């Protein structure tokens, strides 16, 4: 390889890195310049007083509170559904499944991680179609359905991180439990899970971020543009990502566009803080 070729390659790599940084920089600056001035006391509740809005006594027309509350409810509900199953399956795959069974059971986890979220949404929609045709004629898309499908969507994250965290435990530490005369379930509960807890928590943070940002699933399973606060499991709801999409497609006044900018900034900060905590948890795990 000649010097000129080597210099050329180096130049191309620099160009790639610079392009990326500049593009991202411009995007972030643009979002902040339009979004930051919108963030004030009226952002969440508009002209409604905050106590009446939070307690649900007055609807909020001019703020992001209903969408934020919808996203929080969705993430909370989805994680209640997904956490036990995801962590349980991760423990099973790491500690108990062996040989053929392990191979057989880890394939669906990979497949589930690869299914496009719109297809998952379509599955939720199909579920409702089937329910309508069979037992519940009044079944409709709702918060519960959306949360269940989002739970499916985030399961692979929880399973993989739990499994990796448990498999990374030092073999010497594994022997501590039996050496102390602990039963197997006590070893799992008092030694292995605490040792893997940081890794698992990191996975939980990633999964929450994924649950908050996904738009395609909720579009097909019950999100609407103006539902007010989420009022029940079988009711429609609002969500931040859908608000952004909806106002992009059809904003009627500049205030709605402003709200979309602020909502984008909020959603980005939310997913980044969750991701940041996941990175920190996993880095301290590597160090210790």
């Amino acid at each position: 390889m000649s010097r000129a070729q080597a210099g050329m390659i180096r130049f191309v790599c620099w160009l790639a890195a610079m392009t990326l940084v500049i593009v991202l920089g411009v995007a972030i600056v643009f979002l902040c310049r339009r979004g930051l001035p919108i963030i004030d006391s009226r952002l969440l509740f508009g002209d409604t007083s905050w106590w009446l809005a939070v307690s649900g006594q007055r609807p909020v027309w001019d703020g992001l509170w209903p969408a934020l509350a919808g996203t929080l409810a969705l993430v909370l509900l989805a994680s209640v559904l997904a956490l036990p199953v995801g962590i349980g399956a991760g423990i099973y795959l790491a500690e108990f499944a062996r040989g053929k069974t392990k191979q057989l059971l880890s394939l669906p986890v990979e497949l589930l991680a690869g299914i496009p979220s719109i297809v998952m949404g379509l599955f939720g929609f199909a579920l409702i179609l089937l329910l309508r045709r069979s037992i519940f004629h009044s079944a409709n898309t709702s918060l519960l359905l959306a949360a269940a499908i989002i739970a499916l969507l985030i399961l692979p994250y929880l399973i993989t991180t739990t499994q990796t965290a448990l498999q990374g435990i030092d073999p010497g530490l594994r022997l501590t439990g039996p050496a102390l005369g602990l039963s197997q379930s006590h070893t799992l509960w008092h030694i292995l899970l605490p040792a893997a807890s940081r890794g698992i928590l990191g996975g939980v943070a990633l999964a929450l971020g994924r649950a908050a940002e996904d738009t395609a699933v909720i579009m097909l399973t019950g999100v609407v543009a103006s539902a007010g606060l989420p009022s029940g499991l079988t009711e429609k709801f609002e969500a931040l990502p859908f608000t952004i999409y909806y106002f992009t497609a059809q904003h009627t006044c500049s205030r709605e566009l402003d709200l979309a900018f602020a909502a984008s900034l909020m959603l980005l900060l939310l997913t980044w803080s969750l991701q940041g905590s996941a990175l920190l948890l996993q880095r301290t795990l590597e160090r210790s």
Partner: protein
Amino acid sequence: MGRGTKQKTERSATFSRWRQPNERLLLAGLRSCAWLVALAVVLIFLFLLYFSLPALRPESLKTLLNWHWRPYGGEFGILPMVVGSLLLAVSALALAYPLGIALCLFIHGLGPRILRRPLRLILHLMTGVPTVVYGFIAAFLLVPMLRQAFHGSGFSWLAASLTLSLLILPTIVLMLNSQFEPLRARLETSFVALGYSPEQALLQGILPLARQGLLAAAVLGFGRAIGDTLISLMLAGNAPLVPEAPLDSLRTLTAHIALVLATDAQSSTYQSLFVCGTILFGVSLLVNLSLRRLTRSILAPESPT
């Protein structure tokens, strides 16, 4: 080899058998969690298949494999969307892949040491950006630029593929990175001993050895690109036609499902949507199975060359 068997015996010493009734119950619970995931995947596939079966009868298949989407005229052709999905995914990959390789080379020795970690951090942060935010920023920043430069609406194949390439870039780089890292750790001293320059070591040493990793990164990037909904929905213009130029509008399978289900809820168009869903499921299945093959053989022990 010896280390592996040792670990195995230690594991089985930890958990030889769960005898207590409550321990057995716990074990059964954990096992059913794992089987639940398998059941979910099978259910998703069966549901998609069941609902698309009516559309796969010979007479309705003819309306399905058609170049015209006119639901009110009884034409439910999905071919423009199939082509649109492929075009968009391939073009986004064509933009992101060379950039991804260059960035990976930058991280692995062609860039200054102090910039490597920040670049890696940026890539990690990029994976956390919601797709709807990418779409939103592009709709109000990139699309007006395109509109000014080329006239037209700006919502086009080009806008969507530029933004989509940004979305799949970190996926590609992080995949490549995971393949480069062990190779470099194993071979770096040999390259130094052979008197290779960093460029030679990477391009003539590591890249040829990481052939499968390169392929895996492309497959993964393609899978991520074809499965994305929001970017094409918000930026590609969504006309159900095959585009002839980068500034034409196109519609992907994913955007098609979202658009039709979100707008007209009651109609006979459902069946064709489930066919679209089944196609996407099939693609993700293929992507995953080929990834499994590609990454497994990389991780398998091989003698250092």
